[in-house]
């Protein structure tokens, strides 16, 4: 299929063997790439039994048909594995230029298997592929590792992804960082990479990617880039970054406060993208490959306790280290974000664990003895930073908090499970289902646990339409009907986006019809909107089946009880989602059985017959 290289790089760290394999053409047509291709391979290749750190858990890095050229926001790369944090499906993608380079090196995917006996990094320069000694960067923070890696490998046009000390120490919220700041944050992929002693992947690609008709392709790229540029949300993100949404949080109630209890917090006035632009912002960060949105921020703090230079906090960091911990010191939030990037840790899970620990401390479940004398009081900036270091170094209470709130509550007990805010073991992103009801079924059913990206509801709930899927009018955020439907269609569409693969911020402007047109121009296969929805549904259901095989059932499709009770004060006081009805609607539309398995009919309809015998015997 045009637009793809049709090649997969298989790297066995145990034996050191590196092979180049052909990807079956039907896999590319039916799953595209990215998370879809990962699902197709890993469903077959990761055994159902065993620990997440067993050598037969694999890391799958993948791009899609839209990567490797100039399609807007196409610098992204997906990685998938069985999550060390949750034990179920994980995918996570990051921006920058890694995806661009990987594709131009001539590969749609890399599969990493086995375990290396010593620290190594994978060097890819087009056809030259080697495992190299990484002892010179093992133990170093991310930015130092990246600097030294480039110094050894040379080419500034290249890209890399690496783990920091957290991944090396197998902290379960450790993540993989693209270059120095672009995190594939969720689910602990960094811990898996660390368990394999794979410190980094360096990639440089110089080959062009073929499309059927260069003229048609360029015209399509131009049209879609113009649409993204014209879009109001793109413009807001360009002006103030993702933190702009914190400015509207006092009205929407989207950002959780004090571990999801309060509905009102005066700190939003100081902690948002507009405030950042007036204080520590220096300029936009260097853009991700071919991105017209430029949401990233470059900040500098030259004086005081939180000196740093680099990428500033995103919306999620402002939430977890700001409103969730009642900390209105923006500089300290930037520094907390910086520390997470340096250790290579997921911001959402790390901040959520600290917020959880603050509540445990308030309730006397954690004491000064547990925290090495640190007063884990709400708003205590130094305590937040100390906890990040303890988690990253895996010492003291950090050993427990680095395993996520589910595990922490299991160990601490004493009612702490009531305020451990996660779904399927993944801490919840900074979007409240009491503000946008569509997040309810989205979080409950996302294949990786609580996830706002597998169904980027924020782009639609109360804001957008998708006529190709039957959403002709924006839904009222608190509507009692239609949220199961909304969750399904957005999840399916997001699955296609992450298989293509492009940034979710194009969701506001790139319609399913546009995406189908782009995929057709890239591949020469005639896609329309209905066909790409089917691909998305196929991918989503295959990931579901992956989880079903690991024992996941409908009983796991739940939200923490706290989210189904009212906030104290704020715009959504007294308002909670009608979750049971949402899920009923969702299950009916998905054609899932009461036990949570996709029905045989649905699996057959999607061409997933190979799954039926696994789920139904």
């Amino acid at each position, binding site marked *: 299929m045009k637009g793809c290289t049709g090649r997969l790089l298989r790297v066995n760290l145990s034996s050191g063997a590196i092979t180049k394999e052909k990807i079956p053409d039907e896999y590319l047509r039916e799953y595209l790439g990215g998370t879809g291709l990962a699902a197709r391979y890993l469903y077959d290749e990761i055994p159902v039994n065993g620990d997440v750190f067993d050598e037969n858990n694999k890391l799958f890095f993948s791009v899609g048909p839209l990567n490797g050229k100039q399609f807007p926001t196409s610098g992204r790369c997906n990685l998938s594995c069985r999550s060390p944090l949750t034990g179920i499906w994980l995918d996570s993608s990051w921006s920058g230029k890694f995806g661009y380079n990987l594709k131009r090196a001539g590969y749609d995917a890399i599969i990493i298997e086995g375990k290396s006996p010593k620290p190594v990094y994978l060097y890819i320069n087009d056809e030259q592929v080697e495992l190299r000694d990484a002892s010179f960067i093992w133990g170093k923070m991310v930015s130092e590792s990246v600097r030294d890696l480039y110094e050894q490998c040379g080419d500034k046009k290249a890209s890399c992804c690496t783990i920091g000390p957290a991944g090396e120490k197998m902290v379960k919220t450790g993540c993989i960082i693209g270059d120095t700041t672009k995190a594939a944050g969720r689910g602990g992929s960094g811990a898996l990479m660390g368990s394999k002693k794979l410190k980094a992947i360096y990639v440089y690609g110089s080959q062009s990617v073929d499309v059927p008709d260069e003229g048609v392709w360029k015209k399509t790229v131009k049209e879609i880039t113009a649409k993204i540029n014209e879009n*109001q*949300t793109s*413009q*807001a*993100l*360009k*002006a*103030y970054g*993702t*933190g*702009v*949404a*914190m*400015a*509207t949080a*006092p*009205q*929407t*109630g*989207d950002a959780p406060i004090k571990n999801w209890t309060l*509905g*009102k917090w005066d700190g939003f006035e100081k902690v948002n993208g*507009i405030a950042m632009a007036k204080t520590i912002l220096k300029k936009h960060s260097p853009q991700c490959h071919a991105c017209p949105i430029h*949401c990233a921020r470059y900040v500098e703090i030259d004086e005081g306790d939180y000196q740093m230079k680099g990428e500033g906090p*995103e*919306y*999620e960091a*402002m*939430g977890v280290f700001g409103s969730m911990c009642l900390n209105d010191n923006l500089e300290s939030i930037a520094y907390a974000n910086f520390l997470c990037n340096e250790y290579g840790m997921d911001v959402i899970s790390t901040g959520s664990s600290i917020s959880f620990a603050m509540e445990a401390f308030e309730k006397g479940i954690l004491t000064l003895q547990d925290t090495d004398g640190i007063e884990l009081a709400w708003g205590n900036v130094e305590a937040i930073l100390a906890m990040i270091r303890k988690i990253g170094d895996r010492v003291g209470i950090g050993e427990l908090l680095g395993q996520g709130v589910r595990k922490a509550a299991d160990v601490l007990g004493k009612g702490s499970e009531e305020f451990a805010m996660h779904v399927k073991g993944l801490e919840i992103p*900074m*979007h409240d289902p009491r503000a946008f009801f569509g997040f309810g079924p989205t979080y409950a059913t996302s294949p990786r646990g609580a996830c706002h990206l597998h169904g*980027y*509801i*924020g*782009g639609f*709930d*109360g*804001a957008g339409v998708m006529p190709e899927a039957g959403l002709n*009018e*924006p839904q009222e*955020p608190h509507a009692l009907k239609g949220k199961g439907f909304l969750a399904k269609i957005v999840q399916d569409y997001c699955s296609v986006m992450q298989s293509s693969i492009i940034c979710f*911020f194009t969701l506001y402007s790139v319609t399913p019809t546009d995406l189908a047109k782009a995929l057709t121009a890239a591949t020469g296969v005639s896609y329309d909107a209905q066909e790409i929805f089917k691909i998305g549904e196929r991918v989503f259901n295959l990931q579901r089946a992956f989880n079903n095989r690991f024992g996941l059932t409908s009983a796991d499709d739940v939200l923490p009880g706290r989210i189904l009770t009212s906030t104290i*004060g*704020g*715009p959504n006081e007294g308002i909670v989602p009608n979750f049971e009805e949402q899920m009923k609607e969702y299950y009916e539309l998905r054609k899932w059985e009461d036990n949570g398995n996709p029905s045989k009919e649905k699996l057959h309809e999607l061409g997933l017959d190979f799954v039926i015998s696994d789920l139904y015997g």
Partner: protein
Amino acid sequence: MLLVIYMAKIKVRLYGLIPAKFVVKDIDIYKPFNLKKLEKEIISKYGDVIHKDYISDRGLLNHQLVRIGDSSGRRLDYEDDISGIEEIWFIVSISGG
């Protein structure tokens, strides 16, 4: 005869209605006023820069996409009495990362 004109000053936050702008304005408006009158005043002043999606066919703000609330976050609509309110937010939904 003594003519008394009651003028109110109301702080208005227009967040995202003008593309890429998040502005706070003080608007003077004659009392008595309601939300409809305030919206007309806003559109008379800023209608040329507010994105067309956010203006309804009736020349008011499009409440399907524009959310309105007081400083506590309480949602407001045309039937609400806003005469005692000193600050009103008009926002469009933008989801962060």
